[in-house]
């Protein structure tokens, strides 16, 4: 590690697991316990005392961080309206109140665009912990990081899809941006092969729904990490924060 570049410590988090590179799970929650500033702080303080330098890159698994594509309505007067609309949509799709979701998106006014929503409470908890421990923080969606790995630099239109220990992900691109994104919980974490079979079936069904042409090519999700049975989503997310050199796992 260069003495001039800040060391980045990757962390993965899902609904019940908080994991870091080179360590046993920092904390495993028992439902219905949820992530709060106190819970996160108790898990992170002893781990960070052993390191104490660098920054955090936190990858949030798809069971906590939600994704969808938004169709912008006509007659919008400002980006703020569009932002409020996506918060309403997050509340409608995933529950809770609009203010309980932080939304970031590839904002478009004339075509569908991809949205990423993270619970406000989770974002606040991480920010407060980072502030308390005086560490710089990146808080990202693991699924969106995987999408960047799969599509960044590619110009071809088509489909890409993969499965994580808890979610099947399908994305469609026109070569310039993501035009459709669908994430389905599969509940087959103990059987990776079954999860992939489910993914193919889901993809076939969704292409029919979208009336996608049969000739539209599949884009291999080249550098995404493998996962094995009973692996948590947090572990899968954590592998995206590591340097490259993980195996391919395209669907």
């Amino acid at each position, binding site marked *: 590690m260069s003495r001039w570049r800040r060391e980045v410590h990757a962390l993965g988090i899902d609904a019940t697991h908080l994991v870091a590179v080179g360590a046993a799970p920092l904390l495993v929650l028992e439902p219905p316990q949820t992530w709060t500033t106190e819970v996160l702080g108790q898990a992170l303080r002893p781990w960070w005392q052993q390191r104490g330098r660098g920054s955090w890159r936190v990858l949030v698994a798809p069971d906590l961080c939600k994704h969808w594509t938004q169709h912008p309505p006509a007659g919008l007067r400002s980006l703020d309206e569009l932002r409020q609309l996506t918060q309403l949509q997050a509340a409608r799709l995933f529950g809770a109140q609009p203010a309980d979701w932080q939304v*970031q*998106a590839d904002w478009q006014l004339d075509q569908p665009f991809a949205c990423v929503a993270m619970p406000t409470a989770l*974002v606040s908890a991480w920010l407060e912990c980072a502030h308390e421990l005086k560490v710089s923080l990146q808080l990202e969606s693991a699924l969106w990081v995987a999408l960047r790995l799969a599509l960044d630099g590619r110009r071809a239109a088509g489909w890409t899809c993969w499965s994580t220990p808890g979610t099947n992900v399908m994305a469609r691109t026109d070569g310039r941006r*993501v035009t459709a994104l669908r994430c389905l919980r599969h509940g087959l974490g103990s059987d990776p092969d079954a999860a992939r079979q489910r993914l193919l079936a889901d993809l076939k069904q969704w292409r029919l729904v979208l009336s996608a042409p049969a000739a539209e090519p599949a884009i291999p999700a080249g550098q995404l990490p493998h996962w094995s049975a009973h692996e948590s989503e947090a572990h899968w997310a954590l592998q995206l924060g590591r340097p490259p050199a993980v195996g391919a796992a395209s669907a």
Partner: protein
Amino acid sequence: MTVPVFDFARRHGHWLLGATGGRRRRTLALLALLAAGVVLASVTWQVIELRRQLQVRQQAVRQVAVAPVPAQAARLHAAVPLNEAERMRVNRVIRQLNTPWPLLLGVLEQAASPQVALLSIEPNIERGMVRVHAEGSSLDALLLHAEQVQRSPQVAHTLLLKIDHETSARGSAAPRLSYDMVLAR
């Protein structure tokens, strides 16, 4: 294609010169802000100082314009009337300054000889005469010198004052002659 980066830790926007994360960035941003403030204060101070100097100079120019030089000169002229004694003193100084040295020296040069040395020339212009002290190898040479001076057309006459041939008093054997040379008008 380029997939955008979504970092939820930066959702609060750019609060200070784009510094949203990290103490080092905030410190650098604050230092940049402080440096900009110092530069701004310095420029402002210079502008204020230049404006003050400009006002001072404009005031000086206005004062000079209000009291012009010719008026001052006229006031001085009218303020000092000369009395008789002062007028005579001024005239004396003027006459002293107007001594006709070329004429005087020309007369003495024409009467010069190797046997006579001039010791002093004291013009008394008020009386229109010059007192000359001369030393010669002999009394005859001195008298011849006085006669030649008197023959000059610029000289009205000469008036012998004193002949000093007493060697014991001065310690010198050469005689001396003092005479007044009255210039022709």
